[in-house]
């Protein structure tokens, strides 16, 4: 018996010891190398990308996990500056025709690919036509519809030759738009419009799949890419503006759990981190928090085809009984701006006014008026009692909290009872698109930086409408705004459209989105745009 014990304990002991020595030696070598790095003065920024990038093919990875990284590996004709407005990048300068439809870009002489090739106008023509090619099946293709002939090529009615983008010479690119688009320079800073090195792509169509074959033209070059686990970017010495770039390296982990991410940030394995929601309250006031706007709105949609929401007054009554300020203060607790309109802050008119400031609060909590409107609405419809209302949301803790609060607000302020119903994301979305909900949770994030992107969501034929609401006057205002070359007039049309939207109230807003991150004190100048992707060009680490 004793012998048996000893043998077993011995085996266990050896196993434990072996495990310990293995990890100790590994720990030493690991620490040794990282210390060596800081000694030699290599500035390595430690970031977390959350997960594996969908794709570094500029036409494919239409999401933040791909484009936050790609935005620093490549560069378009323009790049968004620290003030979030487009500035010259690969294009040194440009000319715009009188009617605002024809753009001529002049590409820098010293714009190079990371393999030393010149960046040419032909690389842009190649990339943009590829984006629009139906064979490419790019989810971002619609961004190219601003170009004359782009939509026709993508939906199969036209051909590549009809797309009005042309390399006049190696360094001169001419683009004709289908309508004057004041924010075109902003749109082309988007990764979908990055150039592709044509000779590289012809030789190896999968050039974007591995670090070895990746050829970019941005501030950083892709040095290592261990799929699903990490990436390493090194400063790109071929980049035309490499003197501005201060970091030597950027290391990207792929940690998809906010709690773990935060723990790694705490233990020094990351320089920035998101905030775990249950720790928001204690962390939000810390000095390491950075809060930036994000162009987007959390809102609810009424389905105007379903009783009782065919009635405008009933829609308004419910909208006015919701207190947005209370929701952001006590429920979401993430320092969001409460939303009293649909277009978020940060869009400046030609006269320098903020869109949101100018159009003001288009819906405000007002219990008395809400009660009054509900009564009138019910009378108009001949209701003695309001038909049953179901409020739907896609399953998530945060959505649930907001939904329950709104349910409570309806009950307290108007005495209206609603039932809550939740569903898995894809199921929910399918039902919302099929107009099967009565009242449902929604969110909007801008694809490009102009108020029209918000407002075009509610035209009759928009796939984003999902309310059943259709208004000819509104459709006309949006169409006019899209064709208006005079910026002042265009903004007037957009102001008017948003007012009309809230006059009719097929939706009610809850809050605007923001980007809240923790960032170590020794890190500076990481730029996060309200619309756009992470910029590390100016970032520094002490």
């Amino acid at each position, binding site marked *: 018996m004793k012998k048996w014990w000893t043998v077993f304990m011995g085996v266990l002991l050896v196993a434990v010891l072996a495990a310990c020595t293995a990890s100790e030696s590994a720990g030493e070598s690991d620490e040794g190398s990282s210390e060596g790095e800081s000694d030699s003065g290599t500035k390595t920024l430690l970031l977390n990308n959350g997960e594996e990038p*969908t794709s570094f093919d500029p036409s494919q990875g239409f999401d933040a996990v791909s484009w936050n990284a790609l935005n620093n590996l490549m560069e378009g004709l323009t790049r968004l500056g620290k003030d979030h407005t487009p500035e010259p990048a690969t294009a040194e300068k440009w000319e715009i025709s009188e009617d605002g439809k024809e753009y001529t870009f002049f590409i820098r002489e010293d714009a190079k690919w990371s393999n030393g090739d010149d960046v040419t106008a032909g690389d842009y023509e190649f990339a943009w036509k590829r984006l629009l090619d139906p064979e490419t099946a*790019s989810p971002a293709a619609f961004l190219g*519809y601003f170009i004359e002939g782009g939509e026709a090529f993508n939906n199969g009615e036209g051909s590549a030759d009809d797309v009005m983008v042309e390399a006049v010479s190696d360094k001169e690119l001419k683009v004709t738009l289908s309508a004057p688009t004041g924010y075109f320079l902003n749109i082309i800073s988007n990764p979908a419009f990055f150039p592709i090195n044509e000779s590289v792509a012809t030789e190896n169509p999968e050039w974007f*799949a591995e670090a070895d074959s990746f050829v970019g033209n941005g501030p950083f070059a892709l040095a290592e890419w261990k799929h699903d686990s990490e990436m390493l970017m090194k400063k790109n010495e071929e980049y035309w503006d490499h003197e501005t770039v201060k970091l030597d390296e950027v290391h990207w982990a792929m940690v998809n759990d906010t709690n*773990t991410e935060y723990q790694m940030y705490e*233990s020094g394995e990351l320089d920035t981190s998101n905030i775990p929601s249950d720790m928001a309250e204690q962390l939000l006031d810390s000095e390491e928090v950075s809060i930036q706007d994000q162009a987007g709105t959390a809102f609810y949609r009424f389905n105007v085809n379903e009783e009782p929401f065919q009635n405008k007054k009933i829609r308004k009554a419910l909208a006015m009984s919701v207190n947005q300020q209370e929701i952001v203060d006590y429920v979401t607790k993430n320092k969001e701006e409460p939303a009293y309109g649909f277009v978020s802050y940060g869009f400046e008119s030609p006269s320098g006014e903020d869109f949101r400031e100018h159009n003001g609060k288009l819906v405000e909590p007002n219990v008395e008026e809400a009660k009054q409107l509900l009564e009138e609405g019910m009378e108009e419809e001949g209701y003695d009692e309001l038909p049953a209302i179901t409020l739907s949301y896609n399953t998530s803790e945060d959505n649930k909290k907001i939904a329950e609060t709104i349910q409570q607000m309806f009950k307290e302020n108007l005495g209206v009872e609603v039932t809550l119903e939740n569903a898995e994301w894809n199921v929910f*979305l399918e039902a919302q698109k099929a107009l099967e909900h009565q009242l449902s949770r929604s*969110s*909007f994030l801008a694809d490009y930086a102009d108020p029209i992107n918000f407002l075009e969501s509610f035209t009759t034929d928009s796939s984003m409408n999902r309310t059943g609401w259709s208004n000819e006057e509104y459709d006309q205002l949006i169409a006019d705004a899209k064709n208006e070359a005079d910026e002042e007039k265009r903004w007037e049309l957009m102001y008017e459209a948003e007012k009309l939207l809230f006059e009719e109230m097929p939706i009610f807003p809850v809050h605007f989105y923001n980007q809240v991150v923790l960032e170590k004190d020794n890190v500076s100048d990481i730029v996060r745009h309200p619309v756009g992707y992470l910029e590390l060009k100016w970032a520094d680490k002490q």
Partner: protein
Amino acid sequence: MAKYILKRFIYMIVTVFIIATLTFFLMNLLPGSPFNEERTTNEAVQRNLEAHYHLDEPLVVQYVLYLKSIVTLDFGPSIKQPTETVNSLLGRGFPISAELGIWTILIALISGVALGVFAALKHNGVIDYIAMTIAVLGISIPNFVLATLLIQQLAVNLGVLPAATWSSPQHMVLPIVALATGPMAIIARLTRSSMLETLTQDYIKMARAKGLSPAKIIVKHALKNALMPVVTILGTLLAGVLTGTFVIEKIFAIPGMGKYFVEGINQRDYPVIMGTTVFYSAFLVLMLFLVDIAYGILDPRIKLHKEGGK
């Protein structure tokens, strides 16, 4: 024996085929599509995407294409990660999950059996109570809670081990401990109860009476029979742990294949759903098959019974 194995092998193929077919049709019954987005979607763009992945073909055609992909073992590109094929995703994720899984099983098995045996030998003694307390804790504390606790204490507060990712042996310690605790507890309880039962058997009394040393009695006579229930659960346990665990892999940011099971479904990434399901079910069926063979080796009575049954 050969005939039996062949027959079992054919059953295996049929089982996998049925699972694959059921999955395909259930998957297509799910509302939604891989291209369902909250953002504004453009009709032409959607159409191009569907054509690209053959989702515009009739269901029967898709099914045939899919059966072809199983037979040729080529599941095609993932829809959500279009530059990768499902094969490359699994090929990359499985070795990592398997590495984590093998260590987990080894540690769970060694410590679980040890705990169970000690507890049985010292039945109702202090060691028994300690061992069973550990086992009850191990079963009742979910591994994601344990994982977070371990990270908080050992990585953040003490700083002796890294919080996450998968790059060196020291990165493996916390996930393995977190993952092994549950199976260890199950194995410990199973071993204890079957050991207790075995120890009261006549042949053990007989061995004692013959004056064999206690160590020999336990290792050679008792343990071999007492381990039968452990072998039974080992098949499912192996298949489950080796093919990755979503939660632990997510918490420790381990690039295994666990996440593809869950995310594939959430994102309606059809090729990934099919690839992971076929892979998992084939693996599970194979493990069960191996366990059955192991029975035969461990316990001659079972082999006799089965052969006699045919």
